[in-house]
């Protein structure tokens, strides 16, 4: 790649509102794993209410990028500001940001020794110091929202993959996050379960949640994203609004990638 500059349109084309308030600001951020330069000079600004989809080949650093946003990975140079708080090694800042940024993982990472309800109330009770009763009410509210209130007293091991992922989303929502990160939330699921999870995410997007989502679900990207970011070799190679991105990809790498995942 020689050209690194892209025009960022970010036009609000749907009914979902995007404000000018900045939610996440990443400036000249670099990260290495040992000597391996995994993220190279990342610049990304996400406004409140924006829905961003990140795509790219395996190993391109998508997961690492969004994990840097809530400090599951530590960046070495550059700056990441989330909700006005800069990520430094200060533990207080990190815990504050983590409690405001929800994250859903490919393998759900539910706590198998706790019931669904306990999974959802744990963090509100211990981090937000919400009274147990209130935390349980909130949890039931969000479990209803993801349409599995009847599973509240079961254990994660007794649920299907799609149900588990919806619990994971509900668990994050119970912390009342202002930003949600999704790392391939549907790629460990059977096809018939993907839709139920995507529906939940679409609903979330319609309520104006700021979302960054690593996914290969291009239908989802077309429908809800207002920007698609294509990454390769640790760099942001192209970003555009979905229609443009899919119909007129500019870089060769993007074209190749799209032909591979849409081709069959």
């Amino acid at each position, binding site marked *: 790649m020689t050209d690194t500059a892209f025009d960022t349109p970010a036009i609000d084309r749907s009914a979902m509102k995007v404000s000018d308030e900045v939610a996440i600001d990443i400036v000249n951020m670099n990260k290495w794993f040992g000597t391996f330069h995994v993220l190279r000079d990342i610049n990304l600004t996400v406004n409140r209410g924006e829905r961003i989809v990140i795509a790219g080949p395996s190993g391109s650093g998508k997961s690492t990028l969004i994990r840097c946003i809530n400090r599951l990975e530590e960046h070495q140079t550059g700056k990441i500001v989330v909700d006005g708080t800069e990520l430094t090694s200060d533990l207080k800042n990190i*815990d504050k940001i983590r409690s405001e940024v929800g994250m859903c993982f490919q*393998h759900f990472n539910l*706590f198998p*020794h706790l019931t669904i309800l306990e999974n959802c109330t744990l963090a509100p009770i*211990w981090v937000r110091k919400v009274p147990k009763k209130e935390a349980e009410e909130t949890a039931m509210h969000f479990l209803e929202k993801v349409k599995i209130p009847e599973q509240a007293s*079961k*254990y994660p091991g*007794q649920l299907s993959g799609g149900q588990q992922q919806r619990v994971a989303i509900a668990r994050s929502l119970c912390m009342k996050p202002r930003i949600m990160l999704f790392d391939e939330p549907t790629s460990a699921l059977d096809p018939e379960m993907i839709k139920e999870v995507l529906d939940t995410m679409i609903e979330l997007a319609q309520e104006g949640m700021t979302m960054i989502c690593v996914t290969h679900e291009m239908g989802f990207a077309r429908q809800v994203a207002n920007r698609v970011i294509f990454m390769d070799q640790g760099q942001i190679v192209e970003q555009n609004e979905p229609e443009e991105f899919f119909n007129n990809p500019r870089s060769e790498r993007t074209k190749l990638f799209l032909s591979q995942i849409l081709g069959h």
Partner: protein
Amino acid sequence: MSNTHADTVSYVRDTMLMQQDPPSTSVGVVGWARGNLFSGWFNTILTILSAAFVLWLLAGIVPWVVSPTWNASSLTECREILAGHEGACWGVIHERWNQLLFGFYPQELYWRPVLALVLLLIALGPILFADFVSPKILPFSAVYPFIGAWLLWGGTIWTPVMAALGFVVGYGVFVLAQRFIVPGLAFLAAVLAALVWWLVIMPFALPDLARLIPIGLEAVQSRQFGGFMLSITIGVTAILFSLPIGILLALGRRSDLPLVKWLCVGFIEFIRGVPLITLLFVASTLLNIFLPPGTNFDIILRVMIMVTLFASAYMAEVIRGGLAALPKGQYEGADSLGLDYWQAQRLIIMPQALKISIPGIVSTFIGVFKDTTLVSIISMFDPLGLANAIRADSAWNGIYWELFIFIGAVFFIFCFSMSRYSMYLERKLQTGHR
């Protein structure tokens, strides 16, 4: 089905089948015996041979065990009663059972260890059987170690009170220090503060306190302790303390702080590299050389510390195994919700790691409990040491089996209960397939 299929492809059942009883040959005693004992000629032969062997063993053992020697007061008397027949001499158990249980503890004070044991069971209730016992007892469980020690040793009440305050001091320092430094270092500071309290302030203040406000029980010397009371005292202490210490060591070993990490690794590897007997010898002799002259550092306390450290090192490795078995996603799940290190450990990591490690933990417990018999090497009277002492009495000179069977049976009851409990716990903590 294949028939139906051959005739017509479409098939609809018009009557539903009622549930029927299974054939009598596959259920009940007959079914069980058929399935498990007599399935095939080879198994039948094995069953008959094994049954014959068991009968032969019983024929040898039962007459020996059932022997009317309960009231004999010496081995010679046993021989007279048996009049040439083979038989056990149970008189020794009858006459000396209290010694085997309590050692040389003053008879009129037996109620104290018994009460201590009863209170121990009450204190363990909410921990071992959380489903059945109210957690309201937990504060009692927390102060039990001090009550129990006071009941056993007696003396002024200020010793347990001051010892307990050491923990309060440590906790206070930890909470305070955590505001300024990372948890690992704050914990070190807390340990240091508690040690200063116990080793410097406490010996200094105790005599005066005891004189000013003299409340206490009659003191019992450590060398009067013996028998199962000694084994249980040492064993239970080592078991109770080795688990938390082991957890901290295991966490320390995985710590990002090099100092904490290398301290823990060094400790674990050193203790595991040395036989327990060596540590016990250090406790009984060498430690005196290092301690300032005139300090009266109780021998049982020294042994308990050594056995606890020994058990902790093993415990740490068992728990580290459990920690390593947890997927990284559990840590990330906890982190991403904003839980801090200790919250994540307490609420997410440890409950799962400990659950995985239950069989290893209980094995370590059982091992430690049985290892308490090693203290007879440094001339303390554990049950085995007492057996030797009893044999030294001319009335019982030459008696072996009866004592060992009794001691073995009591140990078996304890160890087998622990083993059954661990199985109960594993079943209870089963939360669906993963």
